[in-house]
Structures are given as structure tokens and as C-alpha cells.
């Protein structure tokens, strides 16, 4: 705590000291508390009026530095008001009762004073790392983590089953289905192409719709195979393909 006499700020050295301390001072109640301490009496006994006088005198003298602590002004204004209220005859006192305000101020100063004293006593204790020291090089309590792997009989055996299954040679059994093979389609389409030089629609190359050939799946197979056969013939240069519109009928004609 700054022990410089704050009541004689006119002396340049003291004023400088105050200036240097402004960072630590933080605010008016703090300053007021120091002023109260200056009276060297129990906070409950001090005269708030005298305290206010001293504070205002200080503010007056330190006018030049007010910009450094703007809230000093608010406090000063409030204290000036309190002072004038305290000086007024009792019947002319404004509301609220200045005696109450003064009492509250006193109570606050007491509490702040108590905390400052407590802080000082706390800081004066034997502090770890300053007065007392913990072990400088602790060996540390090691915690080793170990994994305990778990697996059971069923997991083991069933996974072997899965391995066996996965690596067995895979045989695909395809059920026999009525189809027209590409070979037979190729044979049929090229044979029919020899008949005429006119354009013929692809569908005309399919077998007549009778007997087995009424079966829809077989017809689809025949159409697909005939289409592939047509492409093959075109690729071999033996047929022309023509389609007038997208998704329209596909026509083919022998290459002359």
C-alpha cells in the first residue's frame, strides 16, 4: 500500500508518486479507503464528512490528472452531493437520507478494508514455490496400460468357418433359360439380309410368333441377340443401320 501522504499532492514528488500508482489504484472507493486509513481510526468512527472533504480536496489538487481516472469524477460528484446533504439542516434534507448514504459508504469502506487486510495476510503466508517447496524432481507414479485381448471359442471357430467359406472356389449355377444365342441370331440375321436390298426393321428378323417363340422372355432374348448381331454385321461392313428418330425403329439393309 502506498504510504505517501496523499493529502499534500502539491509537492511534486508526492504527486508523481500518485501518478505512478494510478494503475494499481483502480478507482475511487479504493482511494477513499486510503483516505479513511489516513485518519488512523476505526472506519466505524471516522467522519464521512471529513473524509469527503479530504477526497474533494485531493480531486481539486489533482484536477490535471482526472482524464486518467474518469470515474473519480462520478465519485466526486456523488460525494459533493452527499457532503452538501449532510451539511443541510435536518428538515431540509433531500430524499434519500444522506445519513443513510453515509452509513452505507462507511459499511462499504469497512468491507473493502477488511478484504485488503485479508489479502495482505494471505500474501504474507508461506507460499509454495517461494517459501516452501514441493519435490523438485518427482519420479512420478507410472501407469502402464495393458490390453487384455478377448476372444471366445465361438468367435474363433465361426471366423474359421467364414474363412473357409470365403475361399472355397465359387461355382455359379445358372438355371437353364430359353434364349436365342448370339451365334444363332447372327446366322439368322445375315441369312435374312441376303434376301433383299430393301431396308428392313429389326423386328422383322425375329422368328414368327408361334410355338416357343410366343414366350415373352424368349422374344426379348431374340430381340437383344438380333440387335447385337446387327451391330456386329455393321461392324464387319456387311450391313447398314438406320434409325430415323431416337428410340425409333431400327432398320438394316445389306451392303450392296
Amino acid at each position, binding site marked *: 500500500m502506498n504510504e505517501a501522504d496523499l493529502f499534500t499532492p502539491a509537492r511534486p514528488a508526492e504527486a508523481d508518486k500518485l501518478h505512478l500508482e494510478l494503475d494499481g489504484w*483502480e*478507482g475511487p472507493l479504493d482511494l477513499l479507503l486510503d483516505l479513511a486509513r489516513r485518519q488512523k481510526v476505526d472506519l466505524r468512527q471516522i467522519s464521512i464528512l471529513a473524509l469527503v472533504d479530504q477526497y474533494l480536496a485531493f480531486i481539486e489538487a489533482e484536477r490535471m490528472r482526472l482524464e486518467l481516472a474518469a470515474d473519480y469524477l462520478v465519485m466526486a460528484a*456523488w460525494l459533493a452531493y452527499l457532503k452538501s446533504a449532510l451539511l443541510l439542516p435536518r428538515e431540509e434534507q433531500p430524499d434519500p437520507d444522506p445519513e443513510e448514504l453515509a452509513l452505507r459508504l462507511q*459499511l462499504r469502506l469497512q468491507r473493502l478494508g477488511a478484504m485488503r487486510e485479508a489479502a495482505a495476510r*494471505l*500474501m504474507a503466508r508461506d507460499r509454495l514455490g517461494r517459501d516452501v517447496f514441493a519435490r523438485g524432481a518427482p519420479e512420478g*507414479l507410472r501407469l502402464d496400460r495393458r490390453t487384455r485381448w478377448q476372444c471366445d471359442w465361438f468367435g474363433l471357430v465361426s471366423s474359421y468357418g467364414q474363412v473357409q467359406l470365403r475361399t472355397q472356389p465359387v461355382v455359379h449355377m445358372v438355371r437353364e433359360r430359353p434364349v436365342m444365342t448370339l451365334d444363332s441370331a447372327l446366322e439368322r440375321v445375315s441369312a435374312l439380309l441376303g434376301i433383299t436390298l430393301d431396308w428392313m426393321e429389326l423386328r422383322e428378323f425375329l422368328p414368327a410368333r408361334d410355338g416357343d417363340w410366343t414366350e415373352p422372355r424368349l422374344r426379348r432374348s431374340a430381340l437383344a441377340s438380333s440387335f447385337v448381331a446387327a451391330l456386329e454385321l455393321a461392324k464387319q461392313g456387311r450391313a447398314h443401320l438406320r434409325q430415323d428418330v431416337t428410340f425409333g425403329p431400327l432398320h438394316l439393309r445389306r451392303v450392296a
Partner: protein
Amino acid sequence: MSDDLTRAVEAALFASEGPLTADQLSAILNGAAVLPALRMLADHYADRGVHLVERGGRWQFQTAPDLAHLLRRTREQPRRLSRAATEVLAIIAYHEPVSRAQIEAIRGVQTAKGTLDVLLEAGWVRVVGRRDVPGRPVIYATTPDFLNQFGLASRRDLPGIDELRAAGLLDPVDEAFEALVQGADPVDEGALEKGGESA
């Protein structure tokens, strides 16, 4: 001469990188009841160069305070707290849990954010929740590290806390005021608050 459990407790506390609770020690030592051993050790070390101390329920060895003058110069000083920080720390310790507004009400000034940050960073103060009032302000309390740093077995060891409490100096101004003016006219809260806040 001491028994195996006491030796084990002694070794574990020596080896540990930080203070240990009795429970932690017990867990390390396969569930043994460690309190008698701790007491025996504390006794044994009481007049040695190293003491066994309890801080907020955690135990640790540390050098004897009376040897500070010999050991101090070999060490870096711990960070110096600003006066504002020491005040805030004291207010939190003696009033915990407290909100920032309560701290400011006592100090009469706004508390710079950095001031609380310093204490939080040092690990001496932590947020312990929110107060169930409008705005739900965060409330602060001290940590076991705080007790350790200042050599306090518990908050009851805070210097003068009993006297302060008995004198009502840990009660809010409003309460103290009401107590003083009991029977008097109701106080104009608004005007008082206005005066108080501007301070």
C-alpha cells in the same frame, strides 16, 4: 523404522508429481487404509527439513517454512500478483462462491477481465457454476491449488475468517445496513443503488 504400508505411502507421496488425496493413495496401494500411515508420517516429519502437509484434503511433502531463507534464493520467485488480483483473490476466498458483480460491489470498481483471468490461469480460482438469478451470472470459487499455494489446510484456515464473519464483515452492505437501521424507514433502494454503482 516404519511398517511397509507407511513406507509405501511415503514413497508414493515422494514420487507423485502432485498432491494426492487419501483415496488416490489408497487406490495406488491396492485399497489399503492410508490415513493412519499419513498421520504417522506427518508426525515423523514434523521436526525435519521436509514436512508432510494436508492441503484441501490432498497430501504432499514440502520443505519446512523456517528454511525459506536458505532455499529461496535458489528459486525463481512465483509470479507477483497485482494488488487488484490479490484483492479479488481474497474476496473470492472469503466469500465464495461469488459472482463478478459481488466482487465489484465490494471493491467499488469494475474488475478488469484480465484480473480474473490471471487467477483462473494460475489455477487458484475456477468457475463453479451460475447463480440462479436473472442473467445467470457465473460464480467463482477457489481451488485446492489455491489452498496449496498459500499453505492452508482448508478454507477454515483463511487468516481471520472467523473474526470477519463474527463482525459481519463478510455480509453484504445491504444486509449490514438493514441490521443497523432495523425499525427505521424502508430505504430507497433505487437511490442507494445509483450512488453505489457510480462509485
